[in-house]
C-alpha cells in the first residue's frame, strides 16, 4: 500500500515538475507586468478564484458543459450506429467516400452562420453543431474498424449462425472498438472547440461567450481566467477519455502484450 503511494507520488513528481516550473516562471516574470494583454499571474489567479470558485460556475460553466455533453452524446451515438451500418456495406461505403471526405474536411465552424440561421440562436443550434463536429472523427474511425474485422472471425459468426444483434454488438463492435475509441477521443477535442466557438458567435452565456465579452470590455484578467479554465477543462476531459479507453480496451492491451511476448502471437 505505502509502496503504491510512493510510486504514485514519484509519478506525480515526474509529471508535474515542468508545469510547476512554467507556472513559477510565469508568476515571477509577470509580477511587475504593466502590459495590457499580459497582466500579472497573481491577478489572474485572484480573478480565477473569484469567478470560478464557484460564483460564475452555474452561469457560464454549466451551460457549456451541458451543451458539450448533449452534443457529444448525440454525435457519437449517431456516428457509431451509422458507422456499423455503412462499414458493413462496401458498395455504399465506396459510393459515399468522396462525400464523407469532403464533409469531414469542411471546418465545422464554417457552418456556424448557416446552422444559426436555420435553427436560431438557441441551445439547439449549438448542440447540433457540436454533435456534427463530434460525429465525423468517430464515424470515420468506426467505419474503418468495422471494415477491418478479421475475415476468420466473420466466418466463425457465419458458421455458428450468430444472430444479427449478436454479430453487431458482440462481434463487430468490440472488434472495431480500438478504432472507435481513437475516433471518440478526437471527437471530444473537436467538440470542445465547437462549444467555445459557437458561444463566441451567438450566445448570452457559456465560457466562450465569457472570454470574448471579457476581452471586449478590457477585463483582461477575467479573459485569462476563462482561458485557464478552458485549458483545465480540456486537460480533465482528456484524462477522462484516456481512462475510458483503458477501461474498454483492457483486453486489447493484454492481447498485444501477450502477442509481443510470444513473438508473432500464437501460430
Amino acid at each position, binding site marked *: 500500500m505505502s509502496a503504491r503511494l510512493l510510486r504514485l507520488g514519484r509519478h506525480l513528481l515526474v509529471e508535474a515538475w515542468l508545469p510547476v516550473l512554467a507556472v513559477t516562471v510565469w508568476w515571477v516574470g509577470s509580477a511587475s507586468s504593466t502590459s495590457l494583454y499580459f497582466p500579472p499571474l497573481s491577478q489572474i489567479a485572484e480573478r480565477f478564484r473569484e469567478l470560478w470558485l464557484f460564483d460564475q460556475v452555474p452561469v457560464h460553466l454549466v451551460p457549456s458543459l451541458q451543451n458539450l455533453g448533449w452534443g457529444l452524446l448525440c454525435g457519437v451515438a449517431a456516428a457509431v450506429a451509422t458507422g456499423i451500418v455503412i462499414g458493413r456495406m462496401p458498395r455504399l461505403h465506396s459510393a459515399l467516400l468522396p462525400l464523407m471526405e469532403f464533409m469531414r474536411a469542411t471546418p465545422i465552424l464554417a457552418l456556424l452562420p448557416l446552422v444559426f440561421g436555420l435553427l436560431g440562436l438557441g441551445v439547439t443550434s449549438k448542440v447540433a453543431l457540436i454533435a456534427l463536429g463530434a460525429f465525423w472523427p468517430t464515424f470515420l474511425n468506426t467505419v474503418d474498424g468495422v471494415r477491418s474485422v478479421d475475415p476468420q*472471425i466473420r466466418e466463425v459468426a457465419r458458421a*455458428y449462425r450468430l*444472430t444479427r444483434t449478436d454479430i453487431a454488438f458482440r462481434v463487430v463492435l468490440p472488434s472495431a472498438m480500438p478504432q472507435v475509441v481513437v475516433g471518440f477521443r478526437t471527437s471530444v477535442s473537436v467538440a470542445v472547440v465547437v462549444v467555445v466557438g459557437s458561444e463566441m458567435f451567438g450566445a448570452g452565456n457559456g465560457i466562450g461567450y465569457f472570454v470574448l465579452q471579457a476581452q471586449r470590455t478590457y477585463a483582461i484578467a477575467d479573459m485569462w481566467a476563462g482561458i485557464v479554465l478552458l485549458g483545465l477543462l480540456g486537460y480533465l476531459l482528456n484524462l477522462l477519455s484516456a481512462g475510458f479507453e483503458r477501461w474498454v480496451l483492457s483486453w*486489447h492491451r*493484454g492481447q498485444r502484450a501477450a502477442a509481443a511476448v510470444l513473438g508473432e502471437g500464437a501460430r
Partner: protein
Amino acid sequence: MTMTDSEFLQAIGLSHSYVVDRAARPVLHGVDLQVRAGEAVCVVGHSGTGKSTLLRCLAGLLRPTGGEVRLDGRRVMEPPPDLAVVFQDYSRSLMPWMSILDNVMLPLRRGLGSQERRSRAQQALADVGLDGTGSLYPWQVSGGMQQRVAIARALAYRPGVLLMDEPFASVDAQTRADLEDMVLTIRRDTGITLVVVTHDIDEAVYLADRVVVLAGTPASITADLRVDLPPERDQLTTKADPRFLAVRAEVFNMIRTELARAGRAT
C-alpha cells in the same frame, strides 16, 4: 427420408477456383464425396492441396464455383444449422475481447437460456481438459489450449455434423491422444457425423471409418479407403492391429506416390 443413407453429406462434382490477380486459379476439380450419417471420414493430403477449401465448401461458408454440396438432401447455400466447424487457424477464430467461457457460450445464444448455456459450455471445457480456465481470455493461454477452446466451442454447440480442420495440430502427444479418444467417445454416444482434415496418417486411420486422399492440381479425391476396424478403438491395441497397419501403409503409399508424381510434374 427418401434418399439412401449414403447420401447424408455429399459433394457432387465439386470444383472451386479462387480468383488471384484477376485469373481463375483452380484448386478443386470434380470432387465427389459421400458421407453417411454417423460416419467418420478423414481427409488427408499435402499442404496446399485444398483440404481447407473443401471443408469450407462443405460448411456452406464458400460457394463452390462448380458442382454442389448437399446435406440431408438439401442443397447447402449457407452454413446449415446443426453443423459446427473447428477452423485450422484456431487462434484467429477466438474472440480476444471475450473470456474463454463467453467464447464457448456465444454460439449457444440462439434459443438457449443462460443457465443451460453456461452448464453446456462448462461441460465442454471440462471435456477438453480445460476445467477452471473459463474466466481467462484466449490470449492468456497457450496455443494448444486455444485449440482446445475452439474444439469445446464446437462440442458445446452439439452439432449433428462436425467439420474439423487439423484440430489437434498444436497439442502435445498425450493431450492429442486424449482428444482423439474423446472424439471417438462423443461419436459413440451421439452418432455425430464427422469430417476431419489431418496431416497425421495414424490419426486419420485411428479416427476414421474411411480415409480419403485429396491430391492433384486441381485436386480431386484420388483414393477412398475403408478402415476395417471395430468401432471400439484403443490407442495401444488398435495402433498395433495388423488391419490398422495395413490401411496406414496403403494411405502412406498413396500419398508418397502423389508426391512423386507432383515432383515429376514440376
